[in-house]
């Protein structure tokens, strides 16, 4: 199908974009890579009257590591830029981001789709949303009143719903701490599809022993969630090996709850969670 008519505006800079959004009101939308929005417009699931194109704002296309150990990702950085980033650009503690990109759609999607677009779109199974929750990212939003920072725990609010106001532009995603021993893995019906279930595990690993860690799950709730039960197992600690990882995976699966539908969905999901969390633990250690 073809999209409904709209008026096209090209933003000159980030501040200009937010000014335009505020002026144009509710029926305006930002377009970045367009890899979610154009598909929705082609199907008329979205019909904004105004599009504010931020795709040309090269100043929002960057990966910066700082002395504080944080990684700052400009909102317009594409999935493919992260996928092909060198160690120097990414910092050794963020290799998990690069490795995760192979799960995001396919190459021609990754060359256009952006980190900021993924996070603003807030799909419960999107890899970037899951990484943001697992690694405690902070979203930097620019609005008419200036900048504010929103922690991942407050940013995602439900199906395709984020804390961004309609006149706010997501400008940067900050990953505060290196996650040296971390991995994302998932199951999708076909390679490149959105995941049925996905997980990120980040281990606090010293001298072959686990001293805590984080476990986040995608596809099990309207937004990506942490698994406190699985994290409690990691917090008790122990040698990095099958025993601990199986216990951690079991806790994640048990807590993901009773079947959500009439079919065997719940059991199937629990089995996926168990296997995926275990694999992610093992991959995280092998980094």
């Amino acid at each position, binding site marked *: *199908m*073809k*999209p*409904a*008519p*709209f*008026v*096209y505006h*090209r933003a000159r800079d980030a501040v200009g974009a937010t000014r335009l959004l505020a002026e144009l009101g509710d029926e305006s939308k930002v*377009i970045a890579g*367009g*890899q979610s929005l*154009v*598909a929705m*417009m*082609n*199907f008329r699931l979205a*019909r904004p*009257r*105004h*599009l504010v*194109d931020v*795709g*040309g704002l090269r100043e929002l296309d960057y990966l910066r590591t700082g002395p504080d150990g944080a990684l700052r990702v400009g909102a317009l950085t594409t999935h*493919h830029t992260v996928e*092909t980033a060198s160690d120097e650009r990414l910092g050794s503690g963020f290799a998990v981001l690069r490795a995760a990109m*192979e799960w995001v*759609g*396919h*190459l*021609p*999607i990754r*060359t*256009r789709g952006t980190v900021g677009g993924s996070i603003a779109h807030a799909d419960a199974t999107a890899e970037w949303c899951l990484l943001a929750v697992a690694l405690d990212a902070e979203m930097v939003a620019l609005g008419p009143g200036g900048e504010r920072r929103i922690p991942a725990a407050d940013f995602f609010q439900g199906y395709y719903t984020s804390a961004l106001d309609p006149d706010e532009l997501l400008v940067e995603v900050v990953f505060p701490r290196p996650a040296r021993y971390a991995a994302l893995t998932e199951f999708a019906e076909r*390679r*490149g599809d959105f995941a049925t279930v996905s997980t990120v595990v980040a281990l606090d690993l010293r001298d072959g022993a686990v001293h805590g860690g984080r476990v986040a799950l995608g596809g099990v709730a309207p937004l990506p969630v942490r698994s406190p039960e699985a994290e409690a197992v990691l917090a008790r600690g122990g040698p990095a090996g099958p025993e601990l990882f199986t216990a951690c995976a079991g806790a994640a699966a048990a807590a993901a709850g009773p079947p959500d539908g009439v079919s065997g969905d719940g059991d199937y999901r629990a089995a996926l969670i168990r296997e995926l969390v275990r694999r992610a633990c093992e991959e995280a250690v092998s980094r």
Partner: protein
Amino acid sequence: MTDTAPRERQLITLDVNGERHELLIEPRRTLVDALRHDLLLTGTHVGCEHGICGACTVLVDGAPARACLMFAAQAEGARIRTVESLAEDGELSDLQRAFTEHHGLQCGFCTPGFLMLAEGFLAERPAATKEEIREVVASNLCRCTGYQTIVEAIDDCAARRRKET
């Protein structure tokens, strides 16, 4: 539905296969429709219009992209290449010949998309392994060949290019 935005046209300039074109189009014109309907470059095909099939794959500044998931206006300032740019003086390119030799097409509907996907991918990764080629080929859909011959065509083309340099 009357509550739509005004249907204004907009003047844009597109750089396609090294030529500059001025187009007066509605902003909702996707790149693939601008190529096919306004520039009459019908080599680029269109299937699903939501990014799944890859029939519309073109190169945007050298990188493979879905022309159905871009508005033509977003492509202003970028260099676009379509399948029409591969052959020179009526002579098929090495990649196109490899597709012929390996029976990488049957009906041919998907072929322009696969060719541009492979062209962009090999430019970035000339040393791609067969496994990596399989992975990239999974980006697009083909209902005829079963993909094996497409993988072989791309792999063979890459190997020959490596030998030449």
